[in-house]
């Protein structure tokens, strides 16, 4: 009972069993799945859906499965501001599921893209793959979590909490024919959203009537560095250095160096995972996930490299597997959700790092110098590509290279240039300078990427800038 005084019976609300929650959902026919619908005209931007979602799922502050963004057009007094409430789009071709190395994602019969916490190792690859930035890393659990359309509610015939909370009925859930939506999914497109084409988003967005004209998203003001992912900086840089050594090694010592570097790199990469003890699960999706392939190939490469120390005959195979591993490693970054990485130049840059670092260690400064010249060309080509790209995420990467990373960018190339030159005379010094330069370069690779996302609010949630 209530402390501080008795409460009358009427105070305690108990729904009679006869009026227990009634099913609200239409049942699915064959070939249908559930999807969210959003009527932009009806949304007044109250954020009730976000709060209801957090409460329904007991989410900690900072973990948002549903968000409301804003964009506006026109001019006073004919200004129009639009809100877009979005959680998971439960895509027909979910990029999160495709890339997940552990097969933690399942596309259920009812269409829900469900994420199994037990299988998640917290690698966060899905957060790079989803063009809407839907999956989020939840720090207290050290795994990724996301909207499951309130699956426990769906299973009882109830609509999700966000739908129930929407005071203006802007949000809803309805069945959709998978075949028809695959053929025409333009209803999922809206201004400032990544194209539905990428993943076949199922959310049907009813846009307001009238010409929207040119609009500006409130979140366009945000241009902030992404996380550096230090364990990945080390993993990629060191495996590439090791491969470069393997490719040019002539001595036992050099092969031992390659083996050592590759092993350290792999061990260090475990630090990237939210749940390192379950790292082995990363091998579960070799069929589809470049991350699984990277893990398998780089693991095999490290093993071969160790064996090749004593068995020189294994060196060619080691190098071949290493090449495949670095290719997989580069290929996994080539995702539409991250325009700065979404290019073969990313893979080229990884191989050029291998050819810059390894040969400096094995005494081939000319090879290294040539690789570094090529590296500069690849870098410039990518920036030029991004500068021409009309998307703000692409141009944002170029901007971040100037502010706040202008100094580091210049420093990287100064180090690389100096190292390449010095390497001819003093190989150790050259190696140190180039390694440092490539370390800075790899750091910049991670922090200057600007992910695709849904339009957001004026404030980055929780940030007092």
């Amino acid at each position, binding site marked *: 009972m209530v402390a501080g005084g008795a409460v009358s019976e009427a105070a305690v609300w108990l729904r009679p069993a006869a009026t227990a929650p009634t099913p609200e959902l239409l049942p699915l026919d064959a070939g249908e799945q559930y999807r969210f619908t959003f009527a932009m005209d009806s949304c007044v931007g109250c954020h009730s859906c976000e709060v209801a979602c957090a409460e329904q799922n007991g989410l900690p502050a900072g973990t948002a499965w549903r968000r409301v963004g804003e964009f506006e057009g026109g001019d006073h007094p004919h200004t129009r501001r639009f809100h877009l409430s979005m959680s998971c789009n439960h895509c027909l071709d979910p990029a999160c599921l495709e890339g997940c190395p552990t097969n933690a994602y399942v596309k259920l019969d009812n269409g829900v893209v469900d994420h199994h916490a037990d299988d998640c190792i917290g690698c966060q690859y899905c957060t790079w793959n989803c063009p809407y930035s839907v999956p989020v890393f939840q720090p207290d659990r050290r795994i990724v979590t996301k909207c499951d359309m309130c699956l426990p509610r769906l299973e009882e015939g109830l609509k999700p909490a966000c739908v129930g909370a929407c005071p203006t009925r802007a949000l809803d859930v309805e069945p959709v024919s998978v075949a028809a939506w695959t053929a025409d999914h333009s209803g999922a497109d809206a201004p400032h959203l990544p194209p539905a084409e990428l993943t076949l988003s199922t959310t049907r967005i009813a846009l307001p009537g009238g010409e929207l004209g040119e609009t500006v998203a409130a979140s366009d003001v945000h241009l902030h560095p992404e996380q550096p992912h230090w364990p990945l900086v080390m993993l990629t840089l060191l495996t590439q250095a090791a491969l470069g050594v393997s490719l040019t090694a002539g001595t036992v010592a050099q092969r031992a160096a390659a083996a050592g570097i590759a092993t350290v790199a792999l061990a260090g990469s475990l630090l990237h995972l939210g749940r390192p003890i379950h790292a082995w699960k990363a091998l579960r999706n070799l069929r589809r996930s470049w991350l699984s392939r990277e893990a398998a190939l780089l693991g095999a490469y490290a093993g071969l490299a160790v064996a090749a120390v004593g068995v020189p005959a294994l060196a060619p195979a080691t190098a071949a597997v290493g090449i495949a591993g670095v290719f997989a490693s580069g290929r996994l970054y080539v995702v539409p959700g991250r325009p700065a990485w979404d290019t073969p130049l990313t893979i080229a840059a990884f191989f050029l790092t291998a050819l810059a670092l390894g040969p400096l260690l094995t005494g081939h400064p000319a090879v290294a110098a040539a690789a570094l010249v090529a590296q500069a060309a690849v870098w410039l080509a990518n920036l030029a590509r991004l500068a021409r790209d009309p998307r703000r995420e692409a141009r944002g990467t*170029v901007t971040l290279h100037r502010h706040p990373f202008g100094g580091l960018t210049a420093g990287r190339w100064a180090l690389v240039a100096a190292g390449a030159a010095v390497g001819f005379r003093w190989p150790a010094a050259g190696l140190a300078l180039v390694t440092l330069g490539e370390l800075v370069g790899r750091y910049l690779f991670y922090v200057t990427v600007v992910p695709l996302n849904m339009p957001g609010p004026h404030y980055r*949630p929780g*940030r007092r800038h």
Partner: protein
Amino acid sequence: MLGRLRTLLGVDHGGDRYGYVTDELIGPVAASRAPDRWVRTTCGYCSVGCGMLLGVRDGEATAVTGDPDHPVNRGRLCPKGLSEHHTLAAPGRLTHPTVDGRRASWGEALGRVADGYRRLVAAHGPEAFAVLSTGQLVTEEFYALGKLVRLGMGVRHYDGNTTLCMASAVSGYKLSFGSDGPPGAYDDFAEADVILLVGANIADNHPLLAPRVLDNPDAEVIVVDPRVTKTAMLATQHLAVRPRSDVTLLNGIIKLLLDEGLIDRDRVRRVAHGLDELVDHVEAFDLERVERECGVPAAEVRRAALSLGRARRALVAWTMGVNHSVQGTETVTLLNTLCVLTGNLGRPGAAPLSITGQCNAMGTREAGFTASMPGYRAYDDEAARAELAALWGVEPDRLPAERGRAYPDIVNGVIDGRIKGLWIIATNPVVSFPNRELLEDALGRLHLLVVQDGFETPTTALADVVLPAAIWGEKDGTFTNSERRVSRVRAAVAPPGEARSDFDIVLGLAERLGVRGELFPGWTGPADAFAEWRRVSAGRLCDYGGITYERIDAAGGVQWPCPAGDTTVPPAGTARLYGDWRFPTPDGKARLRCVEPKPISDRPRPPYPLLLNTGRTVEHWHTRTKTGRVEILDRLAPEGWVEVHPADAERHRIHSGDLVRLVSERGAVDRIRVRVTRTVREGEVFVPFHFDEQCANRLTLNEFDPISREPNYKQCAVRLERPEPGLSAGTIAARG
């Protein structure tokens, strides 16, 4: 330690904390939020008065859900309501009394208040002590507090923060109709074929009224607001008037309706005084003048006016855009006049409806003994005084013969030294009162400052005595919403530490002052106050006589007037006032008043070229005492901002995301975030007032409505200063 290691290694993922269970009311829900029972109550934020169910488990509030049976909201809630249970365990609660900054017992703290009050009054007379209350208490507490303050303590200067929000509506209703009391009901949104919203951004500030506008797609919705607010965007017609040109606009509309023959003058003469004077007065407000002064094309004004004039049922609703003005009261009378002229009163879908601010601002208006005596009894109404005195069994001369100082005049009294002791209850004037520096200076001069609140605030920080109070969710009583609907609020959990309900604090202080037996004989809880209040309000416009807690529960809220024993009144009370067009004036007729527009005193000029408008945002409530502590709300809107039109931004060479400084003649806000938006007019800027850190009230004007004494928060001149050299985040993003 081991657990931390397990988490870091990823042995488990905390899934046990994130399971789901099925609640019999709401279905599957996170186990962490699942209550073992639901307590029926009413939201404690705004005056819409949404019914909600507060979920409790093991003595802690875990969840909130909209009451599906409540007539106001039918199960729906806004984000503040949906997270309201978090306020109960939020950090910063006051858990024990303090005296001079050190922990004290209740006995010591109340003793200090009683002694301090007695000493000040003995030395300086009854004028030396004042009380500032709130719209946040339950009606039972307001009633008890009023009796204690006016009768028990003999305090002459007693007012509430309601003067900062709806005093102009009160005064305007009194001038037009002879009494306070919003005549309309929320169902009018559904019944009206024209909805006129003046200075009312309900989509942000009364979120559960916005769906009612959307739910009536056939209605013509006319919004009058200088900004393109979320509400303006729902309108079929938005009149983006220049700030403070609403009086001109309304005069112009009235003239046009008269000229077009859309007003039945004979009918108006039967029900109201002043038509002829009004006809002469509005002659000067032709459409050309309206267009010139309001900045709205004449054709648009004409269209809106004709819609109103031809409407079968028009609802005229307003909030702070009207009230927060030196002309607030008179603007309210014009809106009332418009309804009288067009016959929009006392019928479904037809009313002048002031949408008030706080959850129980209405309760203090009716029972609180501030702007009027309990039951809307005027201080200068001898018969009403005699009646009230008889009900209480006291001599009529115990009752004050006049209101005493209103809120801003209490502050002035502190500044000029006449008021030396102040008791502040559940309000945070340091952030909410205009011209903050002046107020802080004033509070610093007091001999005794007592602050009674649920949370630490910038105001409690200045107090000599802090009295920790229970908050919504921890106490019982009733709230009355903007449509006069009385709903129950209930204690679901115990207050923290030694905190007590305001009711118990009032009775405790009465005990100390030796007046408990006389004023509150045999009282033990809010129900005793409610029983007496029902008798005291009987026969008045706000008649609670027939309202019982049981009837409220059965009907999901009861609208007054609800006389006892009147079988013609439906179970849920009286939906609308003045159905008979008889008003509580001496001759039963309404009063039409002539209002001359008054220019803005603090006009934009060098070196203050921009006009500042202030307001609110949906994520927060008042000075964020509660919402700033609810993490999800705080994260949604973590700091204040200034909205600037792109042309002004370009002129100042600033971008969205930049930090700037705003300066007025009175003060400055340092480091406030720019939001470039076309929702404001060029030359005007907007700042939400909620934030202590970017306090808009460092800039605002200490100018007040001469009748209601409500502050003019909405218009003052400011300057925007660019940030120091160097690139800010916003500039970088804009350059990209």
